[in-house]
């Protein structure tokens, strides 16, 4: 650990720093939350809350430079908690909302099928896929965000990809 950090430095010492931090890290946090939850509006609330929570504790962290990773973890944690809180009824309604388009509507093709299949993945598998294929994190980094080992990330992503392959047949097969 750098000796210039430790308990001494705070990136939120004044208003300007706090704003800079918000502008720098919030867009990624909102996008991450949106991709995991599939709900852009909810993502704004989740990311904002995660930011406030992270900044509040950031002052005490021994590695202030780790804020980005810490915020990412807070977002992922909040997203998976969000799913846990949902009732069966809400989950049912969400599933209805994401049901594949009726046949008489325009066919948006493979990518829309992929979106539907992606949204149907279990939350942590979906989060693992987003962290690996959108955020381009290593298995180790994704594990840190998800609070599990790199091997567990590898396993979750493999299961998710298998599910997606089963649900999204190759074009020549359709």
């Amino acid at each position, binding site marked *: 650990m750098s000796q210039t950090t430790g308990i001494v430095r705070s990136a939120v010492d004044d208003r300007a720093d706090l704003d800079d931090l*918000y502008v720098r890290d919030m867009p990624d946090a*909102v996008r991450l939350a949106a991709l995991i939850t599939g709900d*852009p509006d909810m993502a704004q609330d989740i990311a904002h809350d995660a930011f406030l929570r992270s900044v*509040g504790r950031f*002052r*005490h962290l*021994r590695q202030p430079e780790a804020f980005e990773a810490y915020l990412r973890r807070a977002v992922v944690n909040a997203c998976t908690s969000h799913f846990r809180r949902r009732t069966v009824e809400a989950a049912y309604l969400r599933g209805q909302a994401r049901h594949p388009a009726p046949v008489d509507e325009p066919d948006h093709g*493979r990518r829309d099928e992929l979106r539907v299949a992606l949204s149907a993945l279990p939350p942590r598998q979906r989060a693992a896929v987003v962290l690996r294929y959108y955020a381009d994190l290593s298995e180790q980094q994704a594990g840190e965000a998800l609070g599990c080992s790199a*091997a567990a990330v590898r396993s979750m992503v493999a299961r998710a990809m298998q599910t997606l392959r089963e649900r999204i047949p190759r074009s020549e097969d359709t």
Partner: protein
Amino acid sequence: MNDLEHDLREVLDEDARRVPTPISAPEGLRRSVRRRQAVVGGVVGLSALAVVAGIVAGATTLLPVGSSQPAGEGPTTTGTLNGITITYPQAWSLIDPDEAGLNGSSMMAEVPLPRIVLALAPTDAGETFGCPGQAGGAATFLMTVQEEPLALDGPSSEPWPVDLRAMTVDASESACYPGWDFFRAGWTAAGRTFEARLGVDPAATTDERDAVLASFASMSFASSYEGVTAATLTTGNAGGQEWSLIATRQSDGLTLSLQGASSGSGSGGFDRSSQDLQVSSHAFGDGADRELVVYGVVPEGAVRVEASSADGSVTSADVLDVPNEIDPDLNAFALVAPPGSVELLGYDASGEVVARGTVGAPEPAPVPGALLEDGRHFGYVRSVDADARTIEFDLAYFLSGEEANAAYQAAGGTGPVPNDHFVVNDNPKLRTLPLAPDVRLRLLDWNHCCETFFDGDLALFGQAIEEQGDVTDGDLIYRGQSQWWITVENGSVTEIEEQYSP
């Protein structure tokens, strides 16, 4: 990358671009932060008082009290947090780091170590505690003690008691710690390893300084109820960076993590029945300073691991004992080697080889007389071995303009060469070339011909070459009979690009 991964990335990127994101911080952001901290601070104050009150009532009968007593005016009290007993001036606050949120969210606290286990401050209000420099002079110091993985090696394995040593910290610009002095110490006691950090305001009185140093010296330690959950097996230096190899007991078994100052890696999920060395590696440093730390687990019986690198150098290291509380069966090793492919042998006590392993990116395989010099070369890919990551390449010459006309006419053609290019391939020699670990396969998108490329999949490319025909993957077409440009760097093929031919 296959088609599904490709589509997945594009869908996620596309969806991410559609998400409205904030372009400025909202009004009241700082107020929101303060409000949240005030809530936390209230909890800290109340809980700290409760902890202290509870401990004062039972300390003398339940826990031994150290002989050192803090100096300074006023009565002292003794408290215990997370197995650390400390005597300090009664007016000060012993703060439970978990309740104060010092270890992050509850999910973060599930990560056992490192974890802040004690904080001592003269004040207990939330924001004051977070930013002593803005607390109107009341907060004159802050001490935190963090529990680390058990240090079996390195400076933190030093037994308690230890002295606090000055840290070189430039806090002159910090609004929270203006001009403060900082100290640190690392030690091991009762089978646990700790690191303390202490910051002291220049306005602190001599009595306060003496009191906080005496409080530090008064600490005594109890063993952890959980036993050893993490241990630093060894430390070293590679590529100019200090590193530590840490073994952690997790729900799915032993995990090894290699931690450097700016990067690291980890591995877990080890096969307990394997008779091989299960190996990982991580590179530190750049250029000529670059070095590889090779680490992993060994099967039963192995006591030493020897590494042979592609440059002919050999290094060895004794097997590291993983504490039984972390894993009773597996032991580990770590050594530093030059970058590139490393062959490993595990020896038993009698010097017999009992395990083998390999790790690291392969260095360019020398094939005398058959390699190509660095640069871009034209020709035909005759075969692909995706497992060995090699191609057989038939070098040819792609001529254009006057060169093409001359070669065309020398070969019996008349007039200008059609399509303004001519391929000369009169040497049948095939060259086996290694593929770089990150070789890029740029194939023409024949649906959007002919300046658009996609990144192809090596296995499908190999299939097309083997079949000498077209292999399709969705809309993408792999043509086995195309012509190719390869880029060679340091003896390895770093890129294969398809040449358009009508």
